[in-house]
């Protein structure tokens, strides 16, 4: 069952690239069907749970490439496939203004395949290649509109991420020379037997640079606001909601926790980088007037929260980090979709000072946007509140009073800039030039409503029955770092 997550989207992409030029309907149908089937498969995998391993070509792990699904993989896989399905549904309404739509959908499915494969693979070099495949697809998708800003953002994104990837490559080369294996589980067992030395610290730094570039923590965040604000809106939703988490944070977690084993030094680095991201992203977001750019800076800030919670090093901290990751994925995807609907309706004007009073004309967009904003900024009934509360409680338990204080302050700032966004876009007086503004098409509205419903329901993940299925297996992978290697190599 595991290779289906790679085969189906790749087959869809190749079929679209053969037939897409002749019929637009075919590419729409294939994309919708592929993403729907994958969503159902991933939910089935979540309910089944447990640990599965699959040997590609029948070759056993130390020699061949294997696919591994444990708690962490399944959690990220479910997030990827649900959001990709909703965004595909949204794309069908959104893509109308672009030409050569089949290219968009083919690249979209390649990106999906690469994210699924990167999350599932158990081979370090294979992980690197899938990260790069997803990267190439996303560089092309960011530049899809081929306007000046999009090309500039895409160039910056591509160069910075390729450099980051080359650092990871150097780390992989050094690890291969040191351990003579590329399988992550085998490598973890060999590294556990060898004495600690300087090479491993160097490789950890290389991985921090490379995967940190993908996940945009603060010293490496420069590309994110440009790329996420310039891309087509469904792609922004995917980049912010899924790609940063599956290719960046997942890689870092898997390598740090399951291959090297987490140490105090790595935890401290996560803590410092996370705190810097929280502060910088939060404060810079207040000054933005471009609606999508504000959301992009908010992404940096929220990813800072995730890394801050991971750096605390306590089980509650890991739980809070993964819970916040889930909440942020759905809420930020929803926010980018509503921003896309607003920008689409307002003739590509993204400056929020020129808008106002859209709430009366676009009720669905307005209400879903309010739900998303409240979830991210942490208003009680929504999921975002519980995860932020847990992060702060975990920080106080771990003795990080300063960090907890910063988290609270920036949480209030988060609320303030989301209120600024709501006030300027959806409330106030309707200007005369926006008199003819219309609600988004039906497929876009349906997607936004679905994600808003998910955002409301995510608070339920803290209920013990659901928590035991969804989040606990993933947290256990992080707590018992060596269990991954034992389970694969047995």
């Amino acid at each position, binding site marked *: 069952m595991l290779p289906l997550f790679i085969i189906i989207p790749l087959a869809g992409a190749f079929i679209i690239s053969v037939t897409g030029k002749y019929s637009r309907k075919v590419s729409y149908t294939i994309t919708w069907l592929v993403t729907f089937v994958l969503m159902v498969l991933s939910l089935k995998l979540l309910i089944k749970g447990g640990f599965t391993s699959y040997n590609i070509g029948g070759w056993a792990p130390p020699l061949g490439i294997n696919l591994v699904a444990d708690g962490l993989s399944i959690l990220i896989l479910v997030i990827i496939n649900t959001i990709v399905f909703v965004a595909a549904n949204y794309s069908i309404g959104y893509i109308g203004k672009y030409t050569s739509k089949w290219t968009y959908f083919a690249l979209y499915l390649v990106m999906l395949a690469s994210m699924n494969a990167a999350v599932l693979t158990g081979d370090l*070099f294979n992980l690197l290649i899938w990260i790069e495949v997803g990267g190439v697809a996303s560089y092309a998708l960011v530049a899809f509109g081929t306007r000046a800003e999009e090309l500039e953002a895409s160039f910056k994104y591509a160069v910075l991420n390729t450099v980051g990837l080359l650092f990871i490559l150097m780390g992989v080369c050094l690890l291969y020379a040191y351990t003579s294996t590329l399988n992550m589980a085998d490598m973890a067992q060999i590294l556990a037997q060898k004495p600690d030395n300087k090479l491993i610290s160097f490789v950890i730094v290389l991985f921090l640079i490379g995967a940190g570039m993908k996940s945009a923590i603060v010293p490496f965040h420069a590309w994110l606001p440009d790329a996420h604000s310039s891309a087509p809106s469904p792609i922004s939703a995917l980049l912010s909601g899924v790609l940063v988490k599956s290719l960046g944070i997942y890689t870092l977690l898997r390598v740090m926790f399951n291959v090297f084993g987490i140490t105090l030094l790595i935890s401290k680095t996560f803590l410092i980088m996370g705190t810097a991201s929280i502060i910088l992203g939060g404060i810079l977001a207040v000054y933005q007037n471009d609606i999508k750019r504000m959301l992009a800076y908010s992404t940096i800030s929220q990813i800072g929260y995730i890394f801050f919670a991971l750096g605390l090093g306590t089980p509650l901290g890991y739980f809070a980090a993964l819970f916040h990751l889930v909440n942020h994925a759905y809420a930020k995807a929803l926010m980018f979709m509503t921003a896309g609907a607003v920008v689409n309706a307002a003739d590509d004007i993204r400056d929020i000072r020129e808008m106002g009073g859209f709430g009366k004309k676009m009720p669905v967009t307005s209400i879903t946007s309010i739900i998303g904003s409240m979830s991210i900024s942490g208003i009680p009934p929504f999921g975002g509140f519980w995860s932020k509360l847990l992060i702060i409680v975990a920080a106080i338990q771990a003795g990080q009073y300063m960090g907890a204080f910063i988290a609270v302050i920036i949480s209030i700032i988060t609320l303030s800039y989301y209120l600024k966004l709501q006030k300027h876009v959806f409330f106030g007086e309707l200007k005369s030039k926006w008199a003819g503004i219309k609600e988004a098409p039906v497929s876009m509205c349906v997607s936004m409503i679905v994600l808003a419903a998910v955002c409301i329901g995510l608070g339920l993940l803290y209920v013990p029955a659901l928590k035991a299925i969804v989040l606990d297996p993933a947290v256990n992978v992080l707590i018992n770092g060596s269990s991954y290697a034992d389970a694969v190599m047995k």
Partner: protein
Amino acid sequence: MIEYILTFILFTLGLYAILIKRNLIKIIIGLSIMEYSMNVFLILVGYKNGATIPVFTSLTEPRPDAMVDPVVQAMILTLVVMSLAVTFLLITIAMRIYDKYGTYDIRELNKLKG
């Protein structure tokens, strides 16, 4: 030992080109130099003194100990394909940037701020 140091110097030279040069094409060349240096490094990792190509000439007397490591060569082939794709994509983007801005100078690319 000197070969390893030379590859790392090549790697840093590519990084220097990306960080310092202002021309988009020169940045792409810097990226290619970095990728190339990593390929050379991988070859060096798999190299063995006096070894031959990793091809079996007879099944009755296979001598895997006298061959260089074939895994790194497979890795290099994959990396070459990836770097080819990235380079093509970057060159097309650079051409279109020239179309929009009329220059390859990265200091003139300033539509995105904040």
